[in-house]
């Protein structure tokens, strides 16, 4: 319960005060500048107000006559019009520089392209260059200052508006259907960064969580290699695969290398390479997976995946099949 933990980013707090990428650093530095100016204004004006209240409070000893009436003063009023205008000019010029630096940053060669698509209530990520489709957990390479390798995101939505927000890596950008937005991430250190959807998108907006893994070059290459392999053909789980292909699962989900090519739900080709299920609603364990297929409502009320009405045997078989999708 110490104040230190919540106030300063420790562990998993997605704090804007602990920037870890180029853009987030620029925003953080700008915010320190703005806080300094507004803080100074607060001290000056608030101090003046407090002084007035203290100094001119009515006392019993005061003579019972009205104080001197002062109706205005052109010089003073002019002064407190001009000074704020000057402050605004300084603030604006500083801000404009950062707006253009971030929004109009050129795309260097070697930048990675990723398309992010918002869905009610999960994230789809596509890596066009590598032919990879994945969900909810984005992997991007670290971008060292000397050899930058930023990731350029194209953002759009399959249904309602969403907003992509990883506070430590960048500000948020909305995902809007019929409309493509762009942003870039240049994280300077590797690790896991948390975020979530920041635009109310329906009943499970709160559980549209987002994880970004910033990988070292080696980790990233290994991850790409694994994702590029197609779905496994494991004879031992053939029964489960049959359930998957005959019980409507494949209407919504895709598994590369099989007949399943649905696009309403997350791509499951490498389901077990992800740490969480249902866009971060719970850990990806065999029990949770089984329970999720049986009754998605227990974890995520009014998620769009229906309960599949499988009997226990089918449930075991399909879970066993999904567990092989690594």
């Amino acid at each position, binding site marked *: 319960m110490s104040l230190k*933990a*919540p106030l300063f*980013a*420790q562990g*998993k*707090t*997605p*704090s804007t005060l602990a920037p870890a990428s180029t853009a987030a650093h*620029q925003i953080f530095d*700008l915010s320190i500048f*703005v*806080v300094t100016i507004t803080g100074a*204004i*607060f001290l000056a*004006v608030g101090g003046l107000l407090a002084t*007035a*209240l203290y100094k*001119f409070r009515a006392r019993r000893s*005061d003579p019972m006559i*009205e*104080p001197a*009436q*002062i*109706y*205005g003063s052109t010089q003073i009023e002019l002064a407190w*019009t001009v000074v*704020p*205008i000057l402050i*605004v000019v300084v603030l*604006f010029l500083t*801000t*404009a520089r*950062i707006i253009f630096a*971030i*929004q*109009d940053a050129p795309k260097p060669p070697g930048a990675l392209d990723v398309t992010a698509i918002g869905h009610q209530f999960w994230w789809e990520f596509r890596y066009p260059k590598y032919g990879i489709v994945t969900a909810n957990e984005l992997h991007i390479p670290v971008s060292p200052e000397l050899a930058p390798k930023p990731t350029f995101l194209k953002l759009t939505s399959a249904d*309602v*508006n969403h*907003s992509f927000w990883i*506070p430590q890596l960048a*500000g*948020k950008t*909305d995902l*809007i259907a*019929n*409309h493509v*937005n762009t942003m870039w991430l240049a994280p300077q250190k590797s690790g896991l960064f948390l*975020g*979530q959807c*920041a*635009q*109310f*998108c329906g*009943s*499970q*907006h*709160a559980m549209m*969580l987002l994880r970004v893994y910033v990988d070292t070059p080696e980790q990233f290459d290994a991850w790409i290699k694994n994702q590029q392999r197609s779905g496994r053909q494991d004879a031992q789980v053939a029964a489960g695969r049959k359930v998957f292909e005959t019980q409507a699962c494949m209407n919504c989900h895709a598994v590369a290398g099989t007949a399943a090519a649905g696009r309403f739900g997350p791509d499951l080709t490498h389901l077990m390479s992800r740490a969480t299920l249902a866009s971060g609603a719970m850990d990806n364990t065999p029990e949770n997976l089984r329970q999720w297929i049986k009754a998605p409502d227990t974890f995520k*009320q*009014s998620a769009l995946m229906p309960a599949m009405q499988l009997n226990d045997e089918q449930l075991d078989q399909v879970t066993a099949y999904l567990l092989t999708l690594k």
Partner: protein
Amino acid sequence: MSDYSVSAHEAFGPPVSVKKRGTFLESLHAWVVTVDHKRLGILYILYSTFFLLVAGAEALLMRLQLAYPHNQLLSPQVYNRFFTMHGTTMVFLVGMPFLFGFGNYIVPLQIGARDMAFPRLNAFSFWLTAFGGLLLYYSFLGGGGLYGVGNAPDVGWFAYAPLTARSFSPGHATDYWALALIVSGFGTLGTAVNIIATIVSMRCKGMTLMRMPLFTWLFLVVSMLTLVTITPLTAAQFMLLIDRYLGGHFFDTQAGGSSLVWIHFFWIFGHPEVYVLVMPAFAIANEVIPVFCRKAIFGYPAMVAASVGIMFVSLGVWAHHMFTVGMTSVSNAFFTLSTMLVGVPTGIKIFNWIATLWGGRIRFTTPMLFCIGFLFQFLIAGLTGIMLSVSPWDWQLHNSYFVIAHFHYVLVGAVVFCIFAALYFWYPKATGKLMDETLGKWHFWLFTIGFHITFDTMHFLGLLGMPRSIYTYQPDRGWNFLNLIVSIGGVIQGIAVLIFAFNFVRSYFRGKIAGDDPWDAWTLEWTTSSPPPAYNFEQTPEVHSRRPLWDLKHPDDPDWEYEA
């Protein structure tokens, strides 16, 4: 009617119960058919105070839900309905009706008029507004078909398309939301037209525009602003209904429509709306502060100019709600600048209030305490507003708890504080009784402490990455402790409001007799009796300065000798 009761008396003896019931119905009837601006003003105030308690209860339930992670007090849908209804109610059924009702009561008195320009339009506007509120809350009962329970709107008070399209929002909840706001919006438009007409054409002899009390000036400005802001909202609501029922494609992205069109329309209404709510708060502070520091307002012409300036600038800043939707860098820079510029006229106002206090003799009565709270909180709200106008930082702060904290500083810290100040200040005029000062101070201190515990803390939650509109959060995010604090602050505010409600009702029956001019004030409403008679003035007054009662009280040193 009286003939009948006389004959009944002769036939069956004294009709005690019949007569009692008759007087109640008669007085109810008198209130329902009234066209007196004072009675309508009181109806507005009672109506909005009722909804203040309702929307406050919704807020408290939401805070209980968020007190700790993975709480299951409210289901996701119920939480989403509550935050939609809380926001919609507070803006449309509490803020606007209260402030316009208040203007309705005070403006004719302050300008020495006998009533509003169009008394029957005035009554019609009130009943439209009231019907809008009923329609919105009826959705809790009737939204899911005939008496299907609990299908209130759950799309956020901003109702971004395409979440409001029929494919994502089936049922009638969203229709209730749109229809209720159309209906109450027409009521608001009627009142705005009425206030403008009253101020322009019904001022008493001698009251030039530059001698009007600042309260009245601000209501003139706000009413003009209302005309240009409610209109796009109403248009957007119609477009939404056309999309939902007549196959229109304004906002339907599945058919090539645009979500951005809704967002623009909504904020072209939504941003000036903030000033529609906050400028009446300024109006109240402009009356209360001078009276309790015994000084004329400092820089009257500058205050008028700043108000008109805010009105115009506020129409050009709406897209600062849209820094994250993917506008060009040039647009972002433009709206950053225009938003920052609002700080200049607003700053002039704050400085002039401080200058008014300077050299005064300040009495810390309950209405004055609420205005002082307003000054500090509005200063902070203005500065966090500057932070949000810095668009790169807004990319972080937008839709986070920082934004919630900022606009509650404006809407509670400024508007609600001034509403309370106004209630304590003018209650004796409307009822003839003073509200209890001891209970008033308990109310003020508890509410202020609760307010700061709740909303100061929310700034930090926003900086730590907590988004708005979420019914629960993960326990590992470092937000648990701060959320608990926020919820505790919410409970303290709830207790303070109950003290106020008790004081409000009790003072009506047990309060001290107020007299005509209990605060030793200067504007015309204090020359009439408390409560004022029908048609306000026995003889329409004539004024020679901005403070007619000052001139009466100080014949040796009248105001008009000094006014520019």
